[in-house]
């Protein structure tokens, strides 16, 4: 059965789009048929992170408004034949997205794919609530930092009240994805650790993505990190996370970047 997942956080810049791209690609690499949907109307970026920015030729708002076919707006990834992208419209009018229109598009995507990953914009405005509206499950991306944790808590409240699943009285499955985690700093007590964040938000942990240069390198070249550098710590963490999403039980490990002696020395000098 198809699963519709919203990737959300409340706060901006914590890694929603990067995580949507990496989770989507990782699922496709495991043979699942996946579509990633950008809900950031007016500020789309999922196309760029996936390296498909020059292939967006059609305004998807026409699909949501019911005047064009969905197949015209879907873009197939050039590297992974199971991965598709539905970009966001660059229109300035955010009201162009309607609750009903989004519902119809999600329904149609459900009939075509195994996984529908909705990349939510930051904030709690209209497009963010529409991104979560029809989701079956949610991935909450959180940085180990006070403002991110607070905003995640706010988002959890919305997931429990403003979604179709909540209105039906169901409990939505929520998964915590901690990103930009630096285990060394957490060990020194300079950063909230995994248990702190998990206990404060009290939702189950899906994965820990280490702070890593590989993530920026991947978005620089427009290729999800699980594809561009599959052996890297963040890629392995994303791959483990999607296996857990599929129901496999995998030990939770904090992977971290192995720095060379010279790198450490230079970093200490710079600090």
């Amino acid at each position: 059965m198809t699963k519709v997942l919203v990737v959300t956080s409340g706060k901006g810049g914590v890694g929603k789009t990067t995580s949507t791209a990496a989770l989507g690609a990782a699922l496709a690499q495991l043979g699942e048929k996946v579509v990633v949907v950008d809900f950031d109307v007016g500020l789309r970026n999922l196309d760029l992170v996936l390296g498909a920015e020059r292939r967006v030729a059609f305004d998807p708002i026409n699909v949501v408004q019911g005047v064009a076919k969905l197949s015209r707006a879907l873009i197939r990834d050039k590297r992974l034949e199971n991965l598709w992208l539905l970009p966001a419209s660059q229109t300035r009018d955010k009201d162009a997205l309607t609750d009903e229109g989004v519902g119809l598009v999600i329904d149609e995507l459900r009939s075509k794919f195994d996984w529908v990953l909705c990349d939510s914009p930051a904030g709690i405005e209209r497009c963010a609530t529409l991104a979560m509206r029809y989701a079956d499950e949610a991935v909450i991306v959180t940085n180990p930092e006070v403002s991110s944790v607070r905003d995640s808590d706010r988002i959890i409240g919305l997931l429990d009240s403003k979604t179709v699943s909540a209105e039906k009285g169901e409990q939505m499955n929520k998964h915590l994805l901690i990103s930009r985690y630096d285990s060394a700093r957490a060990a020194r007590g300079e950063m909230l650790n995994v248990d702190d964040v998990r206990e404060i938000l009290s939702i189950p942990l899906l994965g820990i993505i280490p702070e890593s240069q590989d993530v920026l390198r991947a978005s620089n070249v427009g290729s999800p990190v699980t594809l561009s550098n599959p052996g890297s710590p963040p890629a392995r963490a994303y791959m483990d996370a999607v296996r857990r999403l599929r129901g496999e039980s995998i030990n939770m490990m904090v992977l971290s970047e192995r720095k060379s002696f010279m790198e450490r020395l230079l970093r200490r000098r710079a600090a």
Partner: protein
Amino acid sequence: MSMKLLRLLSRSGPTAPIARERLQILLAHERGLRGQPNLLEILREEILAVVSRHVMLDSKKVNVKMDKGRSVSTLEVDIELPYGFDKPIAAQA
């Protein structure tokens, strides 16, 4: 451990425990606030539904307020009835 003591100890030490404690206090407060408007919205909807069975109402004219006091809390329901609400329906038509 009290916040002051934590701060004192943490001039140069770990700051994560402070973050943790501040968040726990703040979120407990914010979660409490979140529950309240929800309850009010449910009450508003249900009151509106009951009264609407007997009188045609403008849903915007139903106001429900809660006042939380130390010893007594009150629920204030304010419904503005339309002109001629008590006339038979046939006469309105």
